[in-house]
């Protein structure tokens, strides 16, 4: 019932002249799906890392203050 509709991969790529339209759409879809999963993951990770750096910096400032007070 299901069979490959093209004689070769080159024909699949060309799609009888419709290749540029079809592949442009599948390319955009791939880019959109990657963007929508990568952006929030990067934002999430970067935010936690940034908070971690702030925490470390605050601890160092506090330690420096207590040194001065001594």
């Amino acid at each position: 019932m299901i069979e490959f509709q093209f004689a070769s991969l080159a024909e699949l790529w060309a799609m009888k002249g419709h290749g540029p339209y079809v592949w442009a759409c599948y390319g955009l879809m791939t880019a959109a799906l990657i963007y929508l999963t990568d952006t929030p993951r990067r934002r999430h990770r970067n935010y936690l890392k940034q908070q971690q750096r702030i925490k470390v910096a605050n601890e160092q400032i506090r330690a420096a203050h207590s040194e001065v007070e001594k």
Partner: protein
Amino acid sequence: MAWQWFYRMGSPRWFYEKTGRWIPWLAAITAVLLVGGALWGLGFAPADAKQGNSYRIIYIHVPASFLALAGYYVMAVAGAIGLIWKMKLADMVMKSAAPIGAVLTFTALFTGAVWGKPTWGTWWVWDARITSMLVLLFLYLGVIALQNAYQHQATADKASAILALVGTVNIPIIYKSVDWWYTLHQPATLKLTSASTIHPSMLYPLLIMIAGFYCFYALALMLYTRAEIVQRERRTQWVNELVEAEK
């Protein structure tokens, strides 16, 4: 008791912990459906008698359009819940739904334009369906802009929710545009109340892609909402523990 699940779902921590466990499974299901559906649609579904191979764009265009519309409901309903019950998680979901919806609407418009060129002989016409989809894109962009326009998050959430709710008037217009103004865009291929106007050999990969896009939408919404949760809940003990774990 009956409302307990509702309140529990409203807890950002509960959502964060649960989705952390669901995401790997959902990602795997999504990948299988999208890769399988795309391969089937691109190489194994027969070419269309009239449109040739350009119709293979349907396997992206229709699912992206479905989710662009369904995503608007998600955003508007979340906005309404945030306004009425002041539920923090609902506001975060509303904000998260906007960029996903905008990208999917853009994908629907882009693939429609590219499909239009070999089929209709033009990239763009001010057809009722296409124009109302463009308005949908502007509504999503409006919510994103409002989210960034205010210093105070609660004000931004309220303004975005009101815009999202007002914008719902556009949704039935989009759905019915192909029937009310029969200009260029074809009427719906898939129908719930009557037989679809597409052959099963072309329909099955389309249904797989639609299921894949729904799973993808849920996945992206979870990822965006989780990123929003850690920012808005940064003063809580449990997020501090997450920050500690980053060492």
